[in-house]
């Protein structure tokens, strides 16, 4: 338990781990196979690796690192589309830092920038809108990514552009939505999950009600969790308690941030500007029904896909990459053929190596603590 000493409440953490051990001893299925709990959110993945939480848990618990990092699941085709637009001389392409490094089939946005394209890192879509105000003769495109956590920010920015009558601003919308994704995971035949840690900040926006189907229909427990180490441990305890009691409910460990009904102002903006796409493509996972949103007709002039008639390129994931298998929990990152060799954070082959919320980068960065080694 070498990481536990860094905690603010190390005694609390030890107590929680003890209680988790006791609970696991009382769960029958744990005697036959590991109890598989998926953390859906990349923020949890990062926290789990940073604090070595996996190594502290009894070996009967297997944490499966889910697809909840929006940078990591961006498919190559969308990057290629964005690069094509960024290379137009009239365009200023703007995006978050992490998204610039995601490999496309030809190049990343960062490589496009090195080749002369005007690609700029911004902190906020509001900064992209400010660039549009300052550069009326250029087209400013914002490469919008993220789950429901960041969806309101681009929606509100589009509404602001409309209010000011700014016409040289558009969003290339790659926002994805969590609920259909969890459903696709639950429907996947090669997946065996006993429970979920629900995303904290997505839930801050959408609330906890949209997850009810996980409990009712799929009979799996889910605990919406904060990302501090104690939050994660406590949430794992709550999932295990449900399994032991034979319950399947949606519980909220992160009540201090997540209201049951979500954030109405944020949701209003999202519904006003976006509608569900029939399908959206995920890196490593393929196409998932209703898993992405697009800009509604009423805001078509802010939609970069329509403004620039994007080709909607479809590109298969690179042969060597096993990101899909990692995302589904079939293999661990270090079992990928190219992990740490041709795929590393400096030159990522797969997107899971790009952001510290991706399972491969997290393993790489924090040494891939193997459970057995630390727990013994």
């Amino acid at each position: 338990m070498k990481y536990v000493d860094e905690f603010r409440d190390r005694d609390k953490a030890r107590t929680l781990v003890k209680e988790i051990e006791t609970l696991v001893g009382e769960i029958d299925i744990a005697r036959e196979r590991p109890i598989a709990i998926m953390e859906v959110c990349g923020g949890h993945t990062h926290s789990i690796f940073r604090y070595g939480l996996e190594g502290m848990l009894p070996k009967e618990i297997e944490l499966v690192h889910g697809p909840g990092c929006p940078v990591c699941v961006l498919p190559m085709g969308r990057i290629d589309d964005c690069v094509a637009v960024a290379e137009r001389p009239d365009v200023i392409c703007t995006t978050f830092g992490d998204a610039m490094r995601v490999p496309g089939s030809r190049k990343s946005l960062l490589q496009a920038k090195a080749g002369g394209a005007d690609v700029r890192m911004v902190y906020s879509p509001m900064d992209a809108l400010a660039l549009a105000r300052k550069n009326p003769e250029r087209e400013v495109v914002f490469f919008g990514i993220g789950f429901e956590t960041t969806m309101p920010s681009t929606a509100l920015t589009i509404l602001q552009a409309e209010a000011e009558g700014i016409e040289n601003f558009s969003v290339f919308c790659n926002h994805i939505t969590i609920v259909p994704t969890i459903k696709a995971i639950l429907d996947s035949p090669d997946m065996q999950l006993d429970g979920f840690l629900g995303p904290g900040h997505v839930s801050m926006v959408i609330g906890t009600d949209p997850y009810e189907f996980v409990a009712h229909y799929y009979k799996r427990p889910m605990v919406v969790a904060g990302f501090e180490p104690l939050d994660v441990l406590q949430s794992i305890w709550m999932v295990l308690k449900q399994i032991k009691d034979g319950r399947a409910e949606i519980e909220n460990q992160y009540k201090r941030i997540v209201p049951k009904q979500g954030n109405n102002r944020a949701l209003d903006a999202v519904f006003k500007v976006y509608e569900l796409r029939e399908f959206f493509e995920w890196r490593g996972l393929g196409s998932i029904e209703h898993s992405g949103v697009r800009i509604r007709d009423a805001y078509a002039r802010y939609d970069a896909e329509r403004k620039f008639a994007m080709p909607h390129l479809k590109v298969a994931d690179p042969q060597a990459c096993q990101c899909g298998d990692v995302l589904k929990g079939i293999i661990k990152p270090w079992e990928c053929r190219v992990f740490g060799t041709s795929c590393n954070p400096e030159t990522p082959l797969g997107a899971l190596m790009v952001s510290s919320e991706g399972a491969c980068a997290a393993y790489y960065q924090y040494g891939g603590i193997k459970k057995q080694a630390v727990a013994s």
Partner: protein
Amino acid sequence: MCLGIPGRIIKIDDVDKKLATVDVSGVRRQVNVACIVDNSNPIETCVGEWVLIHVGFAMSRIDEAEAAETLKILHELGEAQAEMEAMQASGLR
């Protein structure tokens, strides 16, 4: 982006556009507060409040202790530094 960062609202810049200035560990920048104001929580009540900020938008009011703990964790995760660099280096010029 997904974890956000806590900051304290120090002044209201534009009531109509719902813009305010926040202080994030000494770095100041403008954020949009539309998601945390409504009729029962008007914009004037924001000053002095701690909020969780995601990509320039205040998404949730938080208390001071929560803000401090979250900042500490973000520093340990290396996210705070990255977030604040992004705030400062934003493509405005």
